[in-house]
């Protein structure tokens, strides 16, 4: 092969200094060819595609309701008009009670949710990473998730009495398993390559958990938080509704319960709608944008 005379001695020097700029230019060209700017959808487009359809659906449901009222499917006291429910809501509003009621429930939900996060996060991490703990309580956690937390209300009242502790106990039993489950599946989905890459960089032990494992499992964790919020709110309402007592403050559940005691259907329905709206609102205003932000940052959200 030494006889192959195709290489001219000069050629070896050909690609010395000038070659560097050559490569730089070539590289810049490749980079430019392979990247593209993703454009953002204009805001009115988002409004039309995201806000209009549910608004129409709600209008349609209200119409069906109104028609059912006109058709007298149920007597007046059982099926009021949408407007009657609105009036019931406005009555409470004018009395200045609505925000207080909402605040009582929201404050409890927030405290319960934060406690649930504080318990579920380390719990989920340990269950996800330690084999024998996972074998021991993994099935229990997923089993607890399918247990309606309302079932805990009677025992909780007997253990803790009719007070906030009982309510928080029910909320925690409802929310902790689903948040823990979220972080477990988040951790399970972390590509092993990230863990190895982290270890190569020196992120081992707790550093690895902080710099790699937690951020990598964030999408699953957020999904768990979202579901944990739903469970928090549900459990709280169940607890407030069943454990109604004057010492317990006047939240949405108690408001609904009072409607029942008064046989006031518009009041009951306005309570139901407020519960629904708070539940959806927190999800829409807090968790959905957070989830989208995280997915978009990682290029996991396909813009249509």
């Amino acid at each position: 092969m030494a006889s192959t005379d195709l290489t001219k001695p000069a050629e070896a020097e050909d690609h010395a200094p000038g070659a560097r700029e050559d490569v730089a230019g070539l590289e810049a060209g490749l980079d430019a060819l392979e990247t593209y700017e993703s454009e953002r959808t204009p805001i009115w487009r988002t409004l039309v595609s995201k806000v209009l359809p549910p608004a129409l659906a709600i209008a349609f449901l209200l119409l069906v309701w109104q028609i059912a009222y006109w058709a007298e499917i149920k007597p007046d006291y059982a099926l009021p008009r949408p407007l009657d429910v609105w009036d019931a809501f406005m009555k409470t509003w004018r009395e200045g009670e609505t925000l207080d009621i909402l605040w009582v429930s929201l404050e409890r939900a927030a405290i319960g949710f934060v406690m649930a996060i504080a318990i579920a996060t380390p719990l989920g991490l340990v269950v996800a990473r330690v084999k024998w703990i996972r074998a021991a309580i993994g099935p229990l956690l997923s089993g607890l998730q399918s247990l309606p937390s309302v079932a805990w209300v009677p025992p909780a009242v007997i253990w803790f009495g009719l007070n906030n502790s009982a309510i928080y106990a029910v909320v925690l039993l409802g929310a902790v398993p689903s948040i823990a489950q979220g972080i477990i599946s988040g951790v399970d989905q972390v590509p092993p390559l990230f863990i190895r890459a982290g270890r190569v960089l020196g992120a081992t032990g707790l550093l690895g958990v902080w710099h790699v494992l937690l951020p990598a499992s964030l999408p699953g964790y957020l999904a768990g938080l979202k579901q944990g919020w739903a469970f928090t709110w549900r459990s709280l309402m169940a607890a407030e509704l069943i454990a109604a007592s004057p010492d317990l403050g006047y939240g949405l559940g108690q408001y609904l319960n009072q409607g029942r005691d008064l046989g006031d259907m518009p009041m009951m329905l306005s309570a139901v709608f407020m519960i629904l709206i708070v539940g959806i609102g927190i999800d829409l205003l807090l968790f959905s944008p957070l989830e989208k932000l995280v997915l978009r940052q990682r290029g996991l959200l396909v813009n249509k």
Partner: protein
Amino acid sequence: MSQTVHEQPVTAAATAVDAARTARGNDDAYAVRLSNVSKSFGRGGAPVLDGIDLTVKPGEFVCLLGASGCGKSTLLNLIANLDKPSAGTIDLKSGRPALMFQDHALFPWLKAGKNIELALKLRGVPRDQRRAEAEKLLALVRLDTAYDKRVHELSGGMRQRVALARALAQSGDVLLMDEPFAALDAITRDVLHDELTRIWADTGRSVVFVTHNVREAVRLAQRVVLLSSRPGRIAREWTIDIPQPRRIESPDVSALSIEITDHLRGEIRRHGKH
């Protein structure tokens, strides 16, 4: 040297393993030294690697070449301390070696620049120096404008360059690369070969580059080490003194590639005979 390239055989030292080993035996300058390293997975499993002796000198560029499944990645993982050898010892002169994977393994929750800064942080670089250092490293891989880019906004070649910059952010002067360009198109790969050669020359790192691509090995390495399969042993090695930067299409590279490919095929063929 550049003038003499075709006056002497390209395979200046296509020596047998044992000869090469004794030749380097007296030389204690090393960046990585493997002595009699073996690895088997599981209890009583067949050895994947068997009695590997390999010394990488400071600043040397070594390519590990072998058929798919011969244990190249296993060997790099051992050097990177991601796994423990079943027998033998691995000595590293300095710090934790950096390792680059075939998949860029950049963290998608961090921007390109922050990926590099994380490596700097874990190395102990003070906060106020990290940004400047990261930008310097990005400039080194010619990605001056990529600091604020998300990983998914970069092309495959750009991602590997950021991954290279992140690897260079580590303190160790050994750079392990596990088929880092295997997933790239040929044009981009060619360019990255040029870049890697330049950066290697500029930074003086010791590089262990794993590939199953013979031409790539000849294009890059000062020394090509051929691994046999099942068990993985060092079958043969070649010292290459074609001057850099080489072109992958050049006759010198081709000629040596043909020779090495023949040996590689011979190794693979042995497994068909029983």
